[in-house]
């Protein structure tokens, strides 16, 4: 059976596609080195248009108006520029109410794309432009550590990784976030206190990595100006040992966190990337695998206390679970030595 995969890797090659939602201008070239803050593409994504109804403005018919329009599609106009006219004894004219570009003229109605600052797409991580995506962006490649999570607030952040966890089961309090975190990415543990989010905002940090988070904080987390990545899920959970060791051992290193939505169709997942030097390019992590004995896996069900183990074997028949459900399952030996039966649907391979 095909298995979902979560990447928790100390050193790997990471390739990420960074693209605009609409066509625009790509500003980098293949082979170019990029830093997280570098703009790699830009486009007018925030639509703001003005519709100029020429017949109504000039008090004439659409047919008459067509002959009086002084502009063409593609023309750039400034506020006050003549658009149509003059007409009538009073020499009525229509002037542009704003600066912009004429994008459409149809049935004597003119659509003006109002000037607005273009949306800038940033690299989001240290790396090299491996490939370009025409009119949309680029594929950026980096080498380093990778830790993937399950929820993000949609923002990017980069800075020094600062550990605030002493154990994988820590819960963060507002007092543990101090000014030394200014401009940093904080590794913070479980959060159920909105004051933690506010404290991080006031420092300000560039990002926070939570082990897990109370779901009641989701609306507030979405509003925070810094990036948030939640690694394990919602409700009080412990950080799995591989993620804990990997992140804490990289304290004081530059890290990028991407709070993109976990979207299986697009293959996007919130994650932490820590660029590291490597003599050779390590292989990229696998994107698909089958469940098999010997694999290291993470248990995904809610409040799984010990969440990492190794598959001993896949059970040949449906397993009867403690709650009397039946499911395809595997026998998994956890890190604490205990062996449990876990539905395959509740496992992801750590690869």
């Amino acid at each position, binding site marked *: *059976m*095909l298995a*979902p995969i979560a990447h928790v890797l100390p050193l790997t090659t990471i390739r990420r596609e960074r693209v605009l*939602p*609409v*066509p625009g201008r790509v500003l980098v070239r293949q082979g170019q080195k990029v830093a997280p803050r570098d703009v790699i593409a830009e486009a007018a994504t*925030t*639509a*703001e*248009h*003005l*519709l100029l109804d020429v017949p109504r403005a000039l008090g004439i018919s659409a047919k008459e108006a067509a002959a009086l329009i002084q502009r063409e599609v593609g023309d750039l106009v400034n506020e006050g520029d003549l658009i149509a006219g003059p007409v009538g004894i009073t020499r009525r004219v229509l002037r542009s109410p704003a600066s912009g570009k004429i*994008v*459409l003229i*149809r*049935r004597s*109605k003119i*659509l003006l*794309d109002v000037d607005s600052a273009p949306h800038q797409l940033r690299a989001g991580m240290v790396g090299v432009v491996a490939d370009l995506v025409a009119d949309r962006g680029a594929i950026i490649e980096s080498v380093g550590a990778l830790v993937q999570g*399950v*929820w993000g607030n949609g923002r990017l952040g980069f800075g020094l990784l600062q550990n605030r966890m002493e154990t994988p089961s820590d819960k963060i309090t507002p007092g543990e976030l101090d000014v030394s975190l200014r401009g940093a990415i904080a590794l913070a543990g479980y959060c159920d206190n909105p004051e933690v989010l506010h404290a991080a905002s006031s420092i300000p940090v560039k990002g926070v990595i939570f082990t897990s988070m*109370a*779901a*009641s904080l*989701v609306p507030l987390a979405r509003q925070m100006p810094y990036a948030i990545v939640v690694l394990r*899920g*919602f*409700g009080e959970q412990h950080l799995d040992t591989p993620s804990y060791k990997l992140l804490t051992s990289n304290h004081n290193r530059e890290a990028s966190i991407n709070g993109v939505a*976990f979207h*299986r*169709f*697009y*293959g996007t997942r919130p994650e932490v990337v820590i660029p590291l030097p490597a003599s050779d390019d390590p292989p990229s992590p696998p*994107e*698909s695998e089958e469940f098999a004995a010997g694999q290291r896996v993470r248990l*995904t*069900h*809610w*409040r799984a206390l010990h969440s990492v183990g190794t598959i001993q074997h896949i059970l040949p028949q449906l397993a009867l*679970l*403690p*709650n*009397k*459900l*039946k*499911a395809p399952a595997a026998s998994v030996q956890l890190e604490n030595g205990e062996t449990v039966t*876990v*539905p395959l*649907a*509740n496992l992801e391979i750590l690869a």
Partner: protein
Amino acid sequence: MPSSLVSADSLLAIDVGTSTTRALLFDVVEGRYRFLAAGSAVTTANAPFKDISEGVRRALDQLAEISGRLLLRENGSIIIPSSPDGSGVDALAATISLGEPLKVIALGLLEDVSLESARRLAATTYATVVETLSLNDRRKQDARIDLILRTRPDLVIAAGGTEGGADRSIKELLETVGLACRLMPRDGRPQVLFAGNKAIHKDVRAMLGKAVQLHYAPNIRPALEMEDLNAAQIKLAKIYQQIFAEKVLGIHDLNTWAGGNLLPNATAFGRMIRFLSRLYDPAKGVLGVDTGASASTVIAGFSGRLFTGVYPEYGLGRGLPGILKVASPKRIARWLTIDLSPEDVRDYIYHKSAYPASIPATEEELALEQAILREVLRLSMKRLSANFPPGTAGLKPGLTPWFEPILVRGRSFTNAPSPGRALLALLDGLQPTGVTTVLLDQSELAAALGAAAAANPALVVQVLETNMQNLGAVISPVGKARPGTPILRLQATLEDGSEQKMEIKYGTIEVLSVPLGQTVTLRLQPLHRFDIGMGGPGRGGQLRVVGGTLGVIIDARGRPIILHHDPEQRRKLFGKWLWMLGG
């Protein structure tokens, strides 16, 4: 070239769901159609594959292994028609229900007339109305254009203009759509389904021009007091398949294998319900219920007329947090059978949305999912019931009208720990009234049968008879009384002539033990003007029902069910009710 379903012997049905792809084999055995075997695999629509073909192939490989029948050629194509050596099949039906729901902008003239009909049309498939445009909209035209550009819908459903009615306003609304679409890159433009005034079809084409892929359907609101979604629903199902074929590889091929008849799973399920509604008692409707990761679906059929509600916002997968917009964690927590807080409910909902394919592995998780399921059923039924016309049998404010039978599918039911748990979840969530029979689609065949129904009704009838699990006949009296008050007298005569008498008290669930498949004659006498759907409050009579897995169930807890305010007392009652149904 796939052959027609008519006169075919063997049928292969493929369903590609959000998490699982299934392949089902039906064939003639000893002169009757039978469901023979199923294969399944993880759906591969998501990254890194983004191509359903791999999942389809794996499901077919498993089916081939189980059935011993070769189904694929070496080049990966399906063997159709079947060969004398027994390999292949004669026909193929296919359904899909995967991915994010379509983003739809609904456009209509008046909020509670054509716009409402456009919304209801969108709710017949896996779609979410993200924005609406109507005459009541105070936004200026350029603001509406920007809205469409920002929203980037997959589809615009436009309704409005009764036949022979005024058309200027609808044309103005459509002009906005045309202007916005001309600003979008061609591959990012929505498709447009116009289901309004037939007289302006040419004007609509002129306005939208070649800017969009435009579809027409018969007016869904031909007169102010008349709504007819059927033809538009069929068109919408086709558009759904087309849009997804552009997004996900392999769908086009699957559609080709199915002879161009690939259907959304909910549409196929709806066909099954329509089929059944023509077979069963026309005095009542037939209800179909399906709870899945992508959506919760309820479909009512009344003598061939369908009312369909596909609610992605009540799906039990990635979109599950959407339920919190209409049901608070505290409300959901009322149904918990163990001591957990509303905050636990909220945490679990978000956690589940991060791992939508996961299954409850502990008692805690199962209790949470079952509580959520009840609320999903309640919300889905409430929304669909709002569409039922006056005069629908048993329709009372806030209550589920009469249905016979109720067909249930979805892993939450088919994989429940016991038939009693499955039935109790349904009774708690849907709260049926009167007399009904609950059928469990244990092997999840209903959509496949629906996809084959029109062309091969014999297959449907014969497979239905042997593959739907009768959980039991359920009698649900409606009325008010104090707990413990007798509200129904029942006398049962079994086939062997033995008799049982029961006096049913308000607030209880009772079970009449009747062997599976055995017919029992019931004489029912409601007390205190309780209504069991036999002609009015207090009216009883005689009827024959068939015993199910759980016999015959009398759910005398009242409608609507009023739960005890004390959580501990509630949990005790839940335990008692479940115990009555076999645990």
